[in-house]
């Protein structure tokens, strides 16, 4: 009897252990809960593509590189600013301003390489100590060599 009782006792203990193991197997792993949470969370917004949004001309810019008083008419002794507003981000973008005279002559070409992380303003300027010839000019803005926009202006006496 003792032997039989002992065996029964052992079976009860083993049975309990197996049940415990079984319960443990049914418990969902912590990782699956985390994965579900991640899937339910909204995906991070894709970075906005870089683009030239606006070009403004003027005789002066502020600390924010923006033209305070936009104009397209200048005097011979004026410094001419082109304020280029851009949106979006890029690891590296080269903005180029090509200034040309009415006869097609290139007046000046300048570039600025930037790594914008959002809206930015890039300013270009030209000046001529001996005075600008009267006439019509234009500035062409390009990004990485691709023309983005053109702005016409005039120099009057």
């Amino acid at each position: 009897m003792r032997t039989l009782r002992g065996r029964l006792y052992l079976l009860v203990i083993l049975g309990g252990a197996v049940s415990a193991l079984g319960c443990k197997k049914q418990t969902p792993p912590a990782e699956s809960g985390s994965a579900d949470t991640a899937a339910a969370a909204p995906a991070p917004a894709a970075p906005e593509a870089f683009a030239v949004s606006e070009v403004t001309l003027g005789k002066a810019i502020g600390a924010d590189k923006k033209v305070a008083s936009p104009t397209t008419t200048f005097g011979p002794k004026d410094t001419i600013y082109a304020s280029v507003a851009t949106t979006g981000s890029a690891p590296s973008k080269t903005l180029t301003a090509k200034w040309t005279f009415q006869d097609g002559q290139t007046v000046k070409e300048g570039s600025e390489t930037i790594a914008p992380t959002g809206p930015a303003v890039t300013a270009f300027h030209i000046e001529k100590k001996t005075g600008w010839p009267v006439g019509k000019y234009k500035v062409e803005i390009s990004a990485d060599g691709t023309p983005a926009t053109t702005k016409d202006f005039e120099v009057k006496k």
Partner: protein
Amino acid sequence: MPDSKQPKADFSDVEGGSSSTAPAPSGQSYTVVKGDSLSKIAKHFYGDAQKWRKIYEANRNEIKNPDLIYPGQTFTIPDA
């Protein structure tokens, strides 16, 4: 109608520059001041005037002649 005998406008003395609120991709930028040369700038940033060509190559669209740089020009200074 423009006069064909009118001399062509001279823009050789035009100076220009640029600046931005956006950061430069890497390295730094430098705006030329009176008395600068590429060697002098290279000496300042790299401690070696002989490395002027590095600045020249990074700014080829801005520098037509490495012996002629102008106040107001802004150059990208590549990492050493």
